[in-house]
């Protein structure tokens, strides 16, 4: 649903949404890390399309100026601490947004390129996740030359695993990610490779202290059954 809402920003900027979607988008976009910046650009573009100029009847100016005498202006929005933090963060985010979006697009391009079963929704979710302002990136190392990284957002309790140069496993085996916390190894996403690459999104409710990957029978295990192949330092 969230990624669908991202895709509505352009249609929203052209007022081309039905009321239900318009309401849903308006509820979504102020809390979104991507939509406000995108929407601003779309709206600037839409405004450029307004090339017709029609001179109004001079009487209209008089009517308007008479009318606003009777109209009370809305009180300004008073910022409190919470909104201050939010807007400070969103300003910082906006500055970084371009760079992050490019980086995310590159990652999706490189990793996602080879994956047959990916769809736009997943890509959009992944890009959105990788643009999370609180993203923490951990690299996993192992004996093979694979590049494996975990991109963790504590705020969303969400992770992305991105890997390249992974060995293909046998048909009945799959990779499994484990979240290491104070209780030990908590099972996380199970994934396979496509031409050596993988990109997966997962959720985790706790506080990760580390990440590890094992190979497990297809479908995954409740506890690790193989040696650790990759682990955070």
């Amino acid at each position, binding site marked *: 649903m969230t990624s669908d809402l991202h895709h509505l920003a352009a249609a929203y900027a052209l007022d081309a949404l039905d009321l239900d979607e318009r309401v849903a988008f308006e509820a979504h976009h102020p809390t979104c890390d991507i939509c406000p910046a995108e929407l601003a650009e779309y709206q600037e573009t839409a*405004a450029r399309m307004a090339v017709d100029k029609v001179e109004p009847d001079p009487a209209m100016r008089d009517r308007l100026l008479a009318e606003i005498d009777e109209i009370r202006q809305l009180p300004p929005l008073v910022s409190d601490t919470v909104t201050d933090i939010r807007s400070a963060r969103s300003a910082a985010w906006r500055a970084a947004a371009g760079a992050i979006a490019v980086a995310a697009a590159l990652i999706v391009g490189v990793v996602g390129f080879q994956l047959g079963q990916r769809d736009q929704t997943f890509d959009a979710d992944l890009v959105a996740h990788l643009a999370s302002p609180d993203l923490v990136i951990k690299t996993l190392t192992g004996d093979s030359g694979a590049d494996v990284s975990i991109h963790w957002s504590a705020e969303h309790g969400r992770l992305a695993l991105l890997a390249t140069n992974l060995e293909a496993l046998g048909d009945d085996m799959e990779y499994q990610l484990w979240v290491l916390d104070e209780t030990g190894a908590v099972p996380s996403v199970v994934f396979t490779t496509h031409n050596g690459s993988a990109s997966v999104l997962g959720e985790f409710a706790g506080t990760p202290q580390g990440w590890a990957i094992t190979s497990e029978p297809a479908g995954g295990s409740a506890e690790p059954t193989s040696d650790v192949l990759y682990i955070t330092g």
Partner: protein
Amino acid sequence: MENVKPMRPSRSTTRRQRRRALGHASSEAAPAVDALTGLVYAAAKGDRAAFASLYDELAPTLLGICRRVVRDPSLAEEVTQEVFVEMWRLATRFDRSKGTVRSWACAIAHNRAVDRVRSEQSSRDRDQRDADHRVQVAPPANEPVEDDLERQRVRNALDALTEVQREAVELAYYGGHTYREVAVLLDVAEGTVKTRIRDGLIRLRDELGEAS
């Protein structure tokens, strides 16, 4: 000293004129943008004269939007007046970090015009309007066209879109249709129209960005 003094105003005027000419050519960082922002800030404090200046700057463009979408000249004027009343009410909440004054004002105008069309016109009227739109993709004739350069720039950018993208974007923006209505008009899937609008607008943004 007496010889020097008269020189200064004329020199600074020249510089200002030069800067204004530059600003006009490069569109985005134009001094006019800052002037508009200043007018909105003043209007937010209840300054009616500033608001009148804002009206003078923007009324032809906003009336142009309303006329294009609602078609009926007197209804378009009525909607435009509502738009300015709304801008007066909302001036206190204008947030420069979310976009330019022009973008803010055009968004309010287009939104109001589209709402008026959707709420007031019967489906039969709308069918007629659709027919009108197909015939008349060009702007209403016999209206003065002030900014031919900008118009041509936007026209070129629209022409750079694929035919199906341009059609979807124009039916949505100039026609005031929802993407679902556009899907019916073009007899294609709704998802396809959504994608065409999005890709088209991104392309348009890039084309206009390069052109300016």
